[in-house]
């Protein structure tokens, strides 16, 4: 059984077909890239998978469950986590709380336990906290644990968003332009980070990115879409030399 299988996915906004007949498959823990011109429908694909839009047509199977039309939080609970093109952290809460709240998929206690503060409540709160701290330690973020994200540098915020996504213990991590707004040296760090996460957590990663340096050095397989349709897919080398991709997306770098 494949991890994620998308078949004939189509999505329309009013009259505009943002995604049309899109298919893909994750067999195991690949690291794949999704690229394409602006407005091609990449983010829309992610939004559909994470349950934010209900697709007009098509099937999405994740670990054997059909997830099209599921609520976002249920999709996440099944093991799909994501980051956003524009950072969406809870900026007025501490970093720790940001990570803790993402444990909602597995609280382990109910309202009654909460009000009486019984054993179950205490144990689970402790468990979640230790998960969060461990994760922050792994990602070298633990020194910011009491800070509010809004007060942290942009590069760190990007990293926190990834940490938050990891805290739901995903099997598939969707990254929407993780390098956007990062400077060249931060980008190098990010590449290392993603490679490390892929190995350490042993999860599938699918990313949208416009910085070719990132995509080409990380992804084993790249899919290119334009106007919602797949125009090419293949290894980085194949994509880089594909004339259709060059014409629609890569261009030539003469200024």
């Amino acid at each position: 059984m494949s991890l994620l299988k998308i078949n004939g996915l189509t999505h329309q906004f009013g009259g505009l077909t943002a995604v049309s007949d899109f298919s893909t498959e994750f067999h195991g823990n690949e690291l794949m890239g999704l690229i394409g011109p602006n407005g091609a429908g990449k983010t829309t694909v992610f939004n559909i998978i994470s349950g934010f839009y209900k697709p007009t047509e098509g099937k999405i199977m994740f670990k054997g469950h059909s997830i099209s039309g599921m609520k976002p939080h249920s999709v996440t609970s099944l093991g799909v986590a994501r980051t956003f093109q524009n950072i969406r952290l809870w900026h007025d809460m501490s970093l720790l709380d940001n990570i803790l709240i993402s444990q909602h998929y597995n609280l382990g206690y109910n309202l009654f336990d909460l009000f009486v503060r019984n054993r179950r409540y205490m144990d689970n709160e402790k468990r979640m906290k230790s998960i969060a701290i461990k994760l922050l330690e792994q990602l070298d973020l633990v020194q910011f644990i009491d800070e509010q994200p809004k007060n942290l540098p942009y590069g760190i915020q990007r990293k926190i968003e990834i940490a938050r996504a990891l805290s739901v213990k995903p099997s598939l991590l969707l990254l929407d332009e993780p390098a956007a707004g990062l400077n060249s040296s931060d980008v190098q760090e990010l590449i290392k980070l993603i490679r490390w996460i892929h190995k350490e957590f042993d999860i599938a990663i699918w990313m949208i990115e416009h910085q070719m340096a990132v995509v080409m050095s990380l992804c084993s397989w790249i899919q290119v879409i334009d106007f919602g349709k797949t125009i090419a897919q293949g290894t980085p080398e194949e994509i880089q030399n594909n004339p259709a991709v060059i014409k629609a997306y890569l261009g030539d770098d003469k200024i």
Partner: protein
Amino acid sequence: MLLEIKNLYVKYGNIEALHGISFNVDKGEIVTLIGANGAGKTTTLHAITRVPPPEGSKVSGGDILYNGKSLLNVPAHLIVSDYHIALAPEGRHIFGNLTVEENLKLATYSRPDDESLKRDYERVYTLFPKMAERRYQRSETLSGGEQQMLSVSRAIMTACNFILLDEPSMGLSPLLMYDMFRVLKQLNEEGMTILLIEQNANLALKFAHRGYVMDTGEIVASGTAGELLNNPEVKRAYLGG
């Protein structure tokens, strides 16, 4: 000298973000500011365009001279309408509830309705054909890159002589990014002065005449683009190699 920043100090509340920076931009130049995240690049542009609090910051020392005149006491909207300085801000800040066309029209708020206006519309629509195509779409439903184009187009439409760009390539596809830099080059050749902030320092330095490197609220290096590209310090710290 068209723009001269003299020993500028800027504060957010009690936190000082710029600790006395000085630089200048000549007429017809393309100058780039590069540097790490949080170095104070955006803060500098906001200070020049006088973005008012609470979004903005407070200048606590130094001066900003434009054609020899201080901008410090000029209200933000006059910077655009009287001094013809435009900013394509970080984070785009398009008017999502207006259509693409209305966004552009709003940018011409203080312009008379004349020939040059028509020419600018045409220019924007030819530079960014996507904008013409999406003319009647509510702009909040544009994709990220499309919004970026709109933001730059809007800055061009305000009929400026001097344009400040805050990470214009953010979120753009490579093709579009090159296209946009070509457009900017063309504008520059037509006489527009450009101050550019870019994360992709390599690209920015290839494109600009001169550059300044900022770090934690200070200018740490400056020179022509070529000098900076070959400066080993700069290379190591900011060019990712």
